[in-house]
């Protein structure tokens, strides 16, 4: 068999073509790349087409429901519930525990989005309205308190600090030509 392969390879080279690696040895081909019939077929119209598609996707005919045909090209791919892998039983012994999926199970269209590192559709630990109440209640309370703090500031019962040289007129960078108003400070 190897000798036959070698002859084909020699022939291909002599013809001057540039084939891919798999085609150099026509008796073997790589597992990568789609095989015939791997893409979804057209949207099923008849019940027989539905049954065939269900069998293809390893589903029961009762369960199989194709994605509605809106012209986007899903074909006969099944419509599975939009539930992420977080919602699946963590204690069941799945074939692929990380993906929480068994071998041969139909794969959701957005399966790569629903893995456990990504989008999580499971319910929140506390009811949504409770969470909203708590968050907005707290934020609203803090805003109210800061507003009150602006309206009624807290301060020490002292007069403002007194600075010499007409309130440091020159040091503050004011106009040296302009005469500052006379400020007198006294001991008390």
């Amino acid at each position, binding site marked *: 068999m190897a000798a036959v392969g070698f002859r084909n390879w020699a022939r291909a080279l002599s013809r001057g073509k540039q084939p891919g690696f798999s085609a150099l040895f026509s008796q073997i081909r790589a597992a990568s790349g789609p095989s015939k019939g791997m893409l979804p077929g057209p949207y099923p119209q008849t019940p027989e087409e539905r049954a065939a598609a269900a069998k293809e996707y390893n589903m029961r005919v009762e369960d199989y429901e194709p994605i509605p045909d809106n012209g986007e090209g899903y074909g006969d791919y099944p419509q599975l519930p939009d539930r992420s892998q977080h919602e699946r039983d963590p204690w069941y012994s799945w074939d692929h525990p990380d993906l929480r999926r068994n071998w041969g199970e139909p794969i959701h269209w957005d399966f790569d989005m629903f893995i456990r590192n990504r989008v999580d559709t499971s319910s929140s630990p506390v009811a949504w309205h409770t969470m909203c109440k708590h968050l907005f209640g707290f934020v609203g309370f803090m805003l109210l308190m800061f507003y009150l703090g602006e309206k009624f500031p807290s301060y020490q019962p*002292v007069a403002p600090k007194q600075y*010499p040289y007409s309130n440091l007129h020159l040091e503050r960078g004011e106009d040296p030509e302009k005469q500052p108003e006379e400020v007198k400070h006294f001991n008390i």
Partner: protein
Amino acid sequence: MGAHLARRYITETETEPDPAKPFGFDPEFGFGERKEREMVASQAQMNLAQVPVLQRDYCAHHLIKLMKCKRDNWPNFLACKHERHDWDYCEHQDYVMRMKEYERERRLQMRKKRVEEAQAA
């Protein structure tokens, strides 16, 4: 501590002074004779010593002495206790004067209110 806030916002809202506003009464009122505050360090001296603007108050001469002492004694950071105490004491007296000014303003406001009420009655 905090009694002035209760007075300002709740009980005596008209007479409690607001430190953000300038105090209106005549500084000599109620005093026989009042000594002016003396500024020891000149502007040129403060400039040469590079004193920060907010620290150029009536205690700046003590601060300049302290800065010189620290620079001369580095790395002995425990050296300038006397100079630091002088500066701290001066600042303390300045703060006490501020408190007294506030209290003076408050009492003058209350007196003004009493006088107005007596006149109205």
